[in-house]
């Protein structure tokens, strides 16, 4: 696996800007961390279910009802007619 390529690919997908020095540093550090994580390969987990929570969480559903709230735009600086104003989705021709 080319770690530097993976770092560049994930950074682009996650919209995390990295300069050349960061790409170099993170590639080296991620290589070290992933090598440590690889030690889990030696743990036998056949037939062991995954734990996505540490305790049993009983399923709970709430009614799918719209409730009034000002929170979604309460901290936004650019709001027009109750809508957030963001940048263009794509370049204009």
């Amino acid at each position, binding site marked *: 696996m080319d770690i530097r390529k993976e770092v560049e690919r994930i950074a682009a997908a996650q919209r995390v800007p990295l300069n050349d020095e960061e790409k170099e540093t993170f590639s080296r550090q991620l290589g070290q961390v992933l090598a440590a994580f690889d030690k889990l390969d030696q743990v036998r987990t056949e037939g062991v279910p995954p734990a996505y929570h540490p305790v049993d969480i009983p399923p709970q559903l709430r009614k799918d009802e719209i409730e009034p709230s000002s929170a979604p735009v309460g901290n936004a600086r650019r709001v027009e007619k109750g809508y957030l104003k963001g*940048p263009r989705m794509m370049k204009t021709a």
Partner: protein
Amino acid sequence: MTDQTDVLEKVRRADADYACMAYVPDALSESKNGPLRGVFVGVKDNLCVDGMPAQAGSRILEGYVPPFTATAVSRLQLEGATVVGKTVMDAFGFGTFNVNTYKIPKNPHDVSRAAGGSSGGSAVLTAATGLPCVSESTGGSISAPAAFCGVVGVTPTYGKISRYGLIDYANSLDKIGSMALTVREAFGLIDAMAGPDAKDMTSLVPAPKKSVQKKAAVVTELLEKAEPGVRQACMAAVEKLQESGVAVEHVRLEHTENALYAYYIIAMAEASTNLAKYVGLRYGQQLAPEEFETYTDYFTRVRGTFGPEEKRRILLGSFARTAGYRGKYYDKAARVRTLVIREMKSLLQRYDVLLMPSMPCVAPRFSDIEKLSPLEHYAMDVCTVPANLAGLPHASVPIGKSDGMPTGLQIVADHFQEDIVKHYGQVVEAQRK
């Protein structure tokens, strides 16, 4: 009013001396009548308090002022407690020494040393002023700073306290807890904050309580990982427990190192999805949208505000759940987590509590932390991670000093057996006096 003025002055002085506060209000709000009236609390900056800025240690949330209060904090306020301000922390809780942020707290016992993280500001405020704090732990963020600063830190069972209003790090690991000078006071806050909440579907009704059997087990591997002074302080505390009539045995935990790797994979995977919501439109960093050609340009510029540790965890966490690697890393870690939970709960059928050092060392100097690689940094959590990964209640209780710095004994009990942790904590505390 004099009380309030004195308290604010104490908080400001602690902040001036040790850089522990993210926000201190100009004046304190009037408290309600209730059993906690006259109790003043600091609140970690990843918990929302209506009208107080909440930045969670990250520049990306600069300027955010929540229009609501976290359930845990509002329950304290309903009982009469007053919030004195917000305490500094590692960005989003990403750290063991509280150095991954824009304002780094200093240890009141030696200002050349770290306070511990990620709830460093809370531990410093409690150590410097005696005021209790509402804190939060994901993998050890309460025990670590509590041990380093010589205060009591309590992390309850996962689900005991609602996470509504918490700026999340890793949803399956985050637990709101407390810090105080005494075990009784720290558990008093836990009791007041606990209970199911319709706003958090992972908040739970507690399981039935067990009685104390006076049987405890020291986790040998974790004791061996501690530096000599910390080990001696732990063994001295354990001997005193034995003198009080507790039968103590030594046990081995097969999965301590595996727990560390499983924890970091799960925590980073969850963190990388949580951090995806910071797009610079609704809160925190917001730029002028008309100055950008596309949404992607805007989003990328805003996310350039993340610090190095935030970027590192986004990269690692995203990688661990990418197609082709998810089975090897994330799914594997979730299965190892099951083994860790089973192993610890099995031991807790035989013993009231598991005992271990809260941290393997005393608070390190800032100059030494700079030399640590990320992997060495993560490895410092080896004592705190197993209980956090398993969601088990635990407390770090001060047990004396090593090299002139505080150390802590970590006491871990079965799910929802906070009363047993409290019992042992009070025994350890009483024997130190």
